[in-house]
């Protein structure tokens, strides 16, 4: 079991200068381990300020509909209900996650206004003295809808005549500087197909996946005597949450303080700003602390999942196994709103064509709007599903050619000095070495010339 604490193999890069470290590279016990395993770590929910109010959301029961009427009468009649917030209570009723990095348009209301675009979209927020009263009142909100046609498939959403999901964009795709997708154009794939011994094309598909953190998304907002708001949050990005919340509240940034830093699992699901703005509005309007925490249902069906992706890969392959051209058409299902999906789609583009030196690459990476829960950041987004497709593709090529799948990869592996498809020169590469190591770990024999390959030795292609 020594590999658990000392898994380092130094034989593959023997020329790296030896470093004389005292703390780096040693097994220091994780500082919060004892607290976590004994249940004594304090998370945001462990504070219980006096007069705490609870917030629950009434959510859309439709995939795509006009809101004709919202009747709060029955909700307000529930004992313990203090207030019900609608879009009219939110000072700037639009999320601004990408605005802060210079990307627009903002396309998502904090509370629905006039329309809902996915099942579960928040319409109003009930603030009550108990969680039970908040939940009861949220269930008693009556919304009258006029259904609109909905679209759920990325390619159907891009087809002529598809219902428009999100009017902020005017199309069912995110526009990248005038283009309908994020493009990679490198070499000439069509010439590569024409000259290839084999052309292989396959399709890959994934479904949305939940982050499944132990601790669901949430916050407790506590109004301070000086008029500021102290926000106890499990956000993955404190200042990002602060900045976005201030923009929505229309308050100076220094009126807000985020206290966090200890999170029961994030995996990307706590990068979006979800709960803090509404909770801050509620705390401001009531003058009392407000707690807004997602239920497990909300975490699974309403908070952003990993996007479903559909990927088509067409490869030009020579008889000796060299991949000479790769054409990728990738669709990211962003759901009804952008959140971080346009960024994840760009990340997918930069990742193509995988860790291989392929001289001709063409990619169209589409960020597509559909009437489903908006997807967003999740561990490796843009890359994880692409890797499923790319590495399945490599396996299929190897089998079609009757080649050893590791030799196929080593033959095409990128190395130091290679120009990648997004025109960045590769450095610090080590794909060759991890393949060699994995082969050795499982007793997969490689011929001498493959064992001699090195990431630092760029051969002619």
């Amino acid at each position: 079991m020594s590999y658990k604490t000392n898994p380092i193999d130094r034989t593959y890069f023997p020329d790296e200068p030896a470093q004389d470290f005292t703390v780096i590279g040693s097994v220091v016990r994780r500082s919060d381990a004892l607290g976590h395993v004994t249940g004594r770590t304090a998370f945001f929910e462990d504070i219980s300020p006096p007069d705490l109010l609870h917030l629950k959301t009434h959510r859309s029961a439709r995939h795509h509909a006009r809101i004709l009427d919202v009747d709060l009468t029955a909700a307000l009649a529930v004992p313990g209900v203090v207030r019900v917030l609608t879009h009219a209570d939110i000072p700037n009723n639009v999320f601004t996650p990408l605005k802060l990095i210079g990307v627009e348009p903002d396309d998502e209301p904090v509370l629905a206004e006039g329309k809902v675009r996915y099942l579960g979209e928040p319409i109003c927020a009930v603030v009550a003295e108990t969680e039970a009263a908040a939940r009861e009142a949220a269930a008693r909100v009556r919304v009258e809808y006029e259904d609109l046609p909905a679209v759920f498939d990325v390619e159907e959403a891009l087809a002529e005549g598809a219902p428009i999901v999100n009017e902020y964009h005017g199309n069912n795709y995110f526009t990248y500087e005038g283009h309908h997708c994020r493009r990679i154009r490198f070499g000439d794939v069509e010439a590569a197909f024409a000259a290839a011994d084999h052309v292989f094309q396959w399709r890959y598909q994934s479904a949305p996946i939940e982050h499944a953190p132990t601790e669901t998304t949430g916050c407790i907002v506590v109004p301070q005597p000086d008029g500021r708001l102290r926000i106890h949050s499990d956000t993955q990005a404190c200042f990002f949450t602060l900045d976005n919340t201030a923009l929505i509240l229309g308050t100076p940034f220094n009126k807000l303080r985020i206290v966090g830093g200890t999170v029961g699992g994030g995996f990307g699901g706590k990068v979006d700003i979800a709960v803090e703005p509404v909770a801050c509005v509620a705390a401001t309007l009531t003058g009392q602390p407000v707690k807004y925490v997602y239920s497990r249902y909300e975490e699974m069906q309403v908070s952003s999942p990993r996007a479903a992706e559909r990927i088509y890969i067409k490869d030009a392959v020579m008889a000796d196994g060299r991949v000479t051209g790769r054409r990728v058409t990738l669709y990211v299902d962003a759901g009804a709103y952008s959140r971080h999906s346009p960024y994840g789609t760009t990340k997918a583009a930069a990742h193509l064509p995988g860790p291989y030196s392929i001289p001709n690459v063409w990619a169209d990476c589409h960020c597509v709007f559909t009437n489903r829960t908006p997807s967003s950041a999740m561990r490796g987004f843009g890359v994880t599903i692409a890797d499923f497709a790319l590495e399945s593709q490599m396996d299929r090529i190897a089998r079609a050619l009757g080649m050893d799948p590791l030799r196929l990869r080593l033959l095409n592996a990128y190395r130091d000095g290679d120009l990648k498809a997004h025109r960045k020169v590769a450095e610090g590469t080590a794909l060759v070495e991890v393949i060699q190591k994995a082969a050795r770990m499982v007793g997969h024999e490689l011929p001498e010339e493959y064992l001699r390959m090195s990431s630092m030795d760029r051969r002619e292609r």
Partner: protein
Amino acid sequence: MAKLRGRGYASVNYPTGMNLGGDPSQALIHATTTGTFVVSLSSVDLGQGLKTVVAQCAAETLGLPVENILVDTADTDTGPHCMGTFASRGTHRVGNAVIMAAAEAREVMLAVAAEELEVDAGDLETDGTGFVQVTGAREKRIHITDLALAAHFTHGRTISGRGIFLKEKNDPVPETGEMDPDSCQAHACTVAVVEVDDETGVVEVLRMHNAYEIGRALNPAMVAQQVEGGAWMGMSHALFEATEPYYPARDHGPTDFNEYLMPGAADIPEYHNAILERPAGNGPFGAKGIGEMTANAPIPAIANAIFDACGVRLDTMPFTPERVLRGLDELRADRSPTKE
């Protein structure tokens, strides 16, 4: 009816950081009069161990034991700006910022020690146990606690430092996709060994062999934990998880952990891990990010192992028993298992 065994491979790379609008993080560090150094951040520890790793970076740079470091995070009133914990950026960005802050503090620490010991600061070294000493002369030394007291009460100096790491903004060229979005690339190759039950369609992962190259393993045990935790998540993505299992249909969405299944303890395979180190010039002590990538290679490795085991090519995630059985039915129907 049989259990069919197969082996599948996948090799991947993964970017450290993903920048669109400029990607900075800051760190501040100061010594209290106890000789303890407080690292002030607004960075978030998601459970992956960021606080531990940055304490190691501070300790190594200062030349002090890691017990002399406290990490104070995350409060936007007291901690300097951090973009957040995502894109495998935490160790790289925050680690670099902490090293820069600690290097500045170390310089002050040695300058004060030089005055106390009446020697040149250039002749001083840290011994890693809490002392600053004249190089090679253990008898001429001062403990960090005495040093911190002297700095405050005698010399009127703050032993402190400021650090920042910035990956500059880089806009993609819209026509070609030319861009410089990340700081370095880490690498992995996973070999999965599975057993497919051709009666139930259930796939069991028996073993996963994971070879990673991550620049520098700042804490090898936490690296192994990331590799194994990520391999579990990848296996879960591959075989179990979907909030919309029949995408694009919106039906059958699970609402709790009774319906949203993930591998339990008994489903966890044997893990065999190896780490290679090829330090990155821009990483903290050469480290690249390993946070996210560990879930990636297991998915295609399992897909490829399933094909190797039973000839069913699954191009749609997750690889549920239903999909395996439907694939086997198709194979039986047209009896050409090598058709690709």
